[in-house]
């Protein structure tokens, strides 16, 4: 009778420990994943250049975010701030340009080669 009790207790403790360990690991992973997501939201964002347009045309980010434009079009483009805040060199297909927006504000920009292409970064 006693051995049954001990055996089951041991098993129960082991299961509990495994569960605890498992949940700890999951929590740690979650913390890790959450951390990464929070960091991504806070510090990096992407704009895709394709088909003579910037997507998204208006991007809203938090101050301190680094925005990276990637040219996926088959023709070169550039990223030039209308107010002289930033200016990329010409970007051919697959080339990138990044800028970190430290201050809040509205930053309209355009492609200096194809000035009809316009976009905006809103920094909050």
């Amino acid at each position, binding site marked *: 009778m006693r051995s049954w009790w001990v055996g089951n207790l041991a098993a129960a403790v082991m299961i509990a420990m495994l569960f605890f360990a498992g949940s700890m690991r999951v929590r740690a992973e979650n913390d890790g994943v959450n951390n990464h997501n929070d960091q991504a939201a806070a510090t990096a964002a992407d704009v895709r250049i394709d*088909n*003579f*347009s910037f997507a998204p045309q208006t991007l809203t980010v938090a101050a301190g975010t680094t925005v990276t434009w990637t040219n996926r*079009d*088959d*023709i*070169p483009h*550039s990223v*030039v701030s*209308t107010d002289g805040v930033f200016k990329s*060199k*010409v970007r*051919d*297909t697959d080339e990138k340009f990044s800028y970190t927006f430290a201050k809040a504000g509205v930053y*309209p*920009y*355009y492609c*200096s*080669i*194809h*000035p*009809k292409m*316009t976009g905006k970064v809103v920094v909050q």
Partner: protein
Amino acid sequence: MSDIRQDVIHQKVQDLNDDGVDRRRFLKCMAWAGAGLVWTMSGGVPVSRAIATGGGHARDGSGGGDFSFVQISDSHMGFNKPANPDVAATLQVAVDKINGLPNQPDFLLHTGDISHLSRAEQFDTVDQILKGAKAKDVFFVPGEHDVLDDNGKSYLERYGKDARRGGWYSFDHKGVHFIGLVNVVDLKAGGLGSLGGEQLKWMEKDVKHRKHSTPIVIFAHIPLWSVYPEWGWGTEDSAQALACVKKFGSVTVLNGHIHQIMQKVEGNVTFHTAMSTAFPQPQPGKSDSPGPMKVPAEQLRSLLGITQVNTIRGKHALAVVDSTLG
């Protein structure tokens, strides 16, 4: 060119001559690239002269062509994607075609986008290929692809030695006055091509004291008329430039940028855009964007081409003839 096409063209000529001036049909005929006919407007009446072998000789005893020149455009040296992985080869085909003309042009005009990325080696390659042309003089104006990153400094160092500060210039050749304009620098957000106040002032002075009977040829990269503003195909301040040549009897405006032939006649002004030697672009509105048009390899050369311009002594207007590379 097939015999059938030749017959249809002659029929159209007949219609026009019999019916008098029919501008809309005239322009449709003009838009037939590679038709191999020289059309001139003589006193408002279209007159055609068949080109037997691609050259131009008047058959009406007016004394033959005065001179001709060839416009090429948009060579985009450095571009290597569909539909043209080898733009150097197609530029060479264009030069070979020019060299094969029975009447050699006096010079070539390149209306810009010489290079694709404003790189030295790209300009070098174009210069190298053009050295093989029998016509030794080449005049250039820049496209937006030629003035990247340095606002045109390397373009001007290479091609702007005899030009004004911003790269614009004019010259005379056998009684015709040529004006090369730059409308690809200082482009504003959401805007079109732009000439700018300094250049417009210079142009007004440049034409001010010339006889109004002097034929004028204006060449610039972006069209000086509103072809399709949604795609930036126009120049925002071209009206002032055109106003200062309003009194001249014959004005021909030659542009590139749109990689296809478009024409417009407005009074004494004939506007004409050339094909590219590199890749075609879609017609206005026929695609979401004006990027390179992808076509099957065997069709490519039929959408690339050169433009011959002939002056005929005693005739006011210049004759503009397009032909494809294949």
